[in-house]
């Protein structure tokens, strides 16, 4: 029982202090390495651009805002030991819902609608988690199917690209001019709240426990259903935020399966590069955010070098594969010792 109380039961004696220390160091080291990579990419960019400054940062933070939220949504689900292939479709759905509602709305009404969309996001997340729990169908298949459904609903709401949002609402996400801090604040506040929930509450710990080892979690008395529903609900909040951010960034809604799929794959990539183990139970929220920025900057920097940015996609693919490869090799080495 005492063994299962710790969220790291893959390692045979998880309470051995030096094992824990190595683990902690590795987790922190991963985020640290990403931060260094990001800094390097930014410095590289600053040497490429004629006058590097707030504008470049604003482009980086604002245009990646939807993907950051999506990566966070995927992160929470993956930590709980699942995967959600419908995050992109959910984003598209909430983009269309909010764009539809906020067209010609005042600022106050738009805030109300935003709150409504977030509640809706939570409901969609709970529904997904409920289907996964009740049906026993693997989550990949459930979310593949619900992904189709959400895009269908989005297309029904908005057959043609359209909709809109009041400028003051959009500035909440994008800021005015070259101000980049509103976008950063939009990320920081939900991350802080969800991080506290994950690390400081019983439910949050049960999410980690479930992802780490469902059997052990069950034996330790974790309510797996509640933990899974909570994870999907949190993910729903983040996909709703991603939809709202898309509306704010593009000033409208567009229902497209292509956009949804690209976004989903981008979110999975960021999660993997962000140091969240696909096996569940490992990872934080900062890593994926940094990973999204790195994955955005690599093609952008290649473009300034005169390299076809399409090769950025190649680099992205190689990086993701290598990260997972390195992770599995490390795991193998550790499990042998």
């Amino acid at each position, binding site marked *: 029982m005492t063994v299962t109380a710790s969220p790291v039961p893959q390692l045979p004696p998880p309470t051995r202090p030096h094992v824990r220390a190595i683990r902690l160091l590795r987790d922190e080291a991963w985020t640290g390495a990403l931060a260094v990579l990001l800094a390097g990419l930014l410095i590289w960019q600053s040497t490429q651009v004629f006058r590097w400054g707030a504008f470049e940062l604003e482009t980086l933070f604002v245009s990646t805002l939807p993907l950051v939220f999506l990566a966070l949504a995927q992160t929470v689900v993956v930590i709980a030991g699942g995967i959600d292939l419908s995050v992109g479709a959910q984003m598209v759905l909430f983009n269309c819902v909010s764009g539809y509602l906020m067209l010609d709305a005042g600022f106050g009404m738009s805030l109300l609608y935003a709150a409504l969309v977030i509640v809706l996001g939570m409901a969609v997340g709970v529904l997904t988690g409920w289907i996964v729990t009740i049906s026993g169908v693997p989550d990949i298949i459930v979310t*593949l199917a619900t992904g189709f459904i959400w895009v*269908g609903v989005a297309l*029904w709401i908005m057959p043609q690209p359209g909709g809109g949002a009041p400028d003051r609402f959009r500035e909440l996400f994008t800021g005015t001019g070259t101000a980049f801090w509103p976008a950063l604040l939009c990320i920081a506040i939900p991350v802080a709240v969800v991080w506290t929930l994950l690390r400081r509450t019983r439910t949050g710990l049960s999410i980690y426990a479930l992802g780490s080892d469902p059997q052990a979690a069950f034996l330790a008395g974790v309510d797996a259903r509640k933990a899974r529903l909570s994870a999907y609900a949190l993910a729903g909040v983040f996909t709703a935020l991603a939809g709202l951010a898309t509306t704010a960034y593009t000033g409208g809604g567009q229902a497209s399966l292509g956009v949804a799929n690209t976004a989903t794959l981008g979110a999975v990539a960021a999660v993997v590069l962000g140091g969240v183990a696909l096996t569940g139970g490992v990872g934080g929220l900062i890593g994926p955010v940094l990973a999204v920025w790195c994955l955005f900057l690599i093609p952008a920097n290649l473009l300034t070098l005169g390299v076809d940015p399409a090769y*950025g*996609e*190649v680099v992205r693919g190689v990086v993701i*594969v290598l990260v997972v490869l390195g992770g599995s090799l490390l795991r193998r080495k550790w499990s042998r010792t």
Partner: protein
Amino acid sequence: MTLVESPEKAPERTASRRLPAAMLALVGVLLALVLANGVVDASFFSFGQLRNTLLLAAPLALFAGAQTLCMLTGGIDLSVTMTATAVAYVVGSRAAAGDSTLTALLLGFAVALVIGLINGLAIGVFGVNPLIMTLGMAAILTGVLTAGSQSFLSGATQMPQLVLTLGRGTFLGPLPWNLLVWAVLAVLLVLLLRRTGLGRLIYAIGDNRRAARLAGVRVWQVETAVYVIAALLGAVAGILIGGRSGAVDLQLAGSFLLPSVAAAVIGGTSILGGVGGYGGTVIGALILTVLDTMLTRLSVGEAFRQFIAGVILLALAWFYVSSTRRASARRSPA
């Protein structure tokens, strides 16, 4: 009954014992859809319409075959449609550059072989998660093709005559050539899974990877073979699609990716591995194609089509899981 008996219950045997009922239900769904199609539009049974449906079904069924193989081992191949696009590009551009059709096709298959080998070795030997590996491979191929279509792969606008014939030609009545290609490959796939040692090992790995390894199965060899076969099936599908459209572009096959997984799932193959087969997948692919034809005929919006595809996928997957659960619940107390 007794403990001694249970080890003999090889996964494919219990699966095939359960399958007839599910298969009958699937065929029933397919027949109902075909009839409904005939009611909606009497010309569905005309040669032209049947031919169109089969033309669409063949590539989907080939992709779904690749997906079935990977899913039986507990994996998935998200790069198979990009592999198809890459092969179509290679064949098209080599043919346009004046190579003989045979050379162009061989080069195309060589590319698929390399892609499959990389996927299979990374997954089998280095233990990379299949989802991530093939996702990464898809990203790499997308990048290379996007850049290459402007330079070294440009001019892939003219497919060789043989490929055009295979892709859109008709050899008898409403039966297109690509149906023949598909039929031959389908028979081979079913034989591979049912009658060969490799087929048994594929089921064994998907059922219990660890037990298979401890029993002496060289898991990495089986997985490498599976991903190579998957890539080659994707190559054939890519050549057929390229032949049908006559020209190649980056969006050639991407829209087949999720339906290919869906067709395998609808056909009763479990994404967790060890359960299923190609027979069900074929029917799954036909169901999806006929359904799509009907919804196009009814000129319902794209919205409803997406929605109904999702609902059907979810409902059938749910049905399979619950029937498996009931079956195993019935077995376990005995």
